[in-house]
């Protein structure tokens, strides 16, 4: 693995983790939400690196275009003063570090298949469509029902009660 193939990976990993760290640690809510957007864009760039361009683009549309906008709208509508001291419960950090250490230890002890770069067939939209309609048609319908239920539920939850 020469420098030219490590460099994009390292840069994207750095951006993603920096954005995630900022999203977890910044006191200002809007700054944290915008760093989350950076982290999502980094994950989308990872998907592009791994040859799944369609999933990367869907990640941008769904996460950056919808989830981040939802979070931002909720920040607008609920004035929370989270910049006060005492905004963070520092007891959670050791737990997260313990989980990190445990998972990394598990990773180092697992024998993973040797990563042959570029061995995967390119992920075409035609292939995804055919697989969705042939093998995964029932999960597709189930996801449709789940999303409809989520839509109806979200609207009902924030509907104003009739006096």
């Amino acid at each position, binding site marked *: 693995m020469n420098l030219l193939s490590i460099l994009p990976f390292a840069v994207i990993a750095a951006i993603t983790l920096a954005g995630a760290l900022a999203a977890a640690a910044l006191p200002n809510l809007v*700054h944290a939400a915008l760093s989350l957007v950076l982290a999502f864009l980094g994950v989308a760039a990872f998907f592009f690196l791994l040859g799944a361009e369609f999933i990367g683009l869907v990640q*941008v549309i769904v996460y950056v*275009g919808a989830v981040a*906008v939802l979070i931002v709208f909720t920040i607008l509508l609920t004035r929370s003063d989270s910049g006060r001291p005492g905004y963070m419960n520092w007891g959670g950090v050791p737990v997260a570090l313990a989980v990190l250490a445990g998972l990394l230890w598990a990773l180092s002890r697992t024998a993973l298949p040797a990563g042959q770069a570029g061995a995967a067939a390119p992920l075409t939209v035609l292939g995804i469509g055919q697989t969705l309609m042939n093998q995964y048609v029932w999960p597709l319908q189930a996801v449709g029902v789940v999303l409809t239920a989520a839509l109806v539920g979200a609207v009902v939850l924030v509907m104003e009660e009739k006096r």
Partner: protein
Amino acid sequence: MIDAADQIFVIAKRLLLSLLMWAPDWVVQVVSSLMNVAAVLGVFLVLFALISVFERKILGRIQNRYGPNRVGPFGLLQPVADGIKMLIKEDIVPRGADKAVHFLAPVAMVAPAILALGVIPYGRNMTAFSIDAGILFFFAVGSATELAVFMAGWSSNNKYSMLGAMRAIAQMVSYELPLIITVLPVVMIAGSLSPDQIVAAQNGYLFGLVPKWFVLTPWGAVAFILFFTASLVESNRTPFDLPEGESELVAGHMTEYSGFKYATFFMAEYFGMFAVSGLAVTLFLGGWHAPAAFLQFIPSWIWFFLKLSVLLFTFIWIRGTLPRVRIDQVMKLAWTFMLPMAFSCLLAAAAWHYISSAALGWFSSLLIVGIAYAGLSKILEARKHLSVRTYQFAE
């Protein structure tokens, strides 16, 4: 000779790249991409300057007055004067504003617009970046614009900016759905998400005279009108410019920006207009194809820019003619009318394509769209009571 005029830019780029024969492969690729980017940026910056003066002149003519005509012949050097003014204006940032977010908002607004310009085919073999899922890429960068609007409104620390930003985001999110769903019939019929393939699917002429553009089919005409309306909303143009209504919110989310940052917002709005008009030309109006078989001697890129100019003129024309729509009327239009109509377009496209007899396919597709429109109008107007219009003049 005709072919050379058509491919003149491709040949010029190939000649320039041949000067780099000695360089390694990746250098040639990088330089080639940079040349594409420079060409797109150069053309659209000039077009932006021209549009800003033509809009004011056309609006002026609609309002029975001359537009700007002092600077240069017929006022054509007005963009130069505007540019100098914007550059030397003082950059005022409100005291309570969030400095970093306030600075990044114009950047985050203009970057997606320029990115979206890269996937549109401007002529035969003249796409800046030919991506396989180009339409998806276009919508992905379009959805990043909403965040930039929020950043601008929030960081200004101003209630009216915040109101404008909220309205703008609500509008843009609501109309993303009709925008994407009206594109679905085109993708279904063309069988590909790549803009090059979609333009290639509109090749050919019926009876040698009528082009096979998608706008000349029943479902295509309705989808084009819906797409055009949704793109009016996405670029915050009249009649949907409530978020930046000058008589209401000063400039909405752009209120606290002055000088070069305001010029960047302005540029982002126009680039968004160019991108979405370019996509409309690609998807519905046949891209760079000529309207008749005997007109094919005119180069393809001239046809593309001609069609683009027609669409931009329609944008400006609608701005000068229609009044503003209220925000709740805007949202109601999106969710109750445009969404069901877009789904009926999808059904009509399927009927047009898969019914074996061509005439029956056309007729049933027309029927589906007509029934959907009539049904929706009936249902939605059921609660309106239109009385006889009375005029009251001062005596």
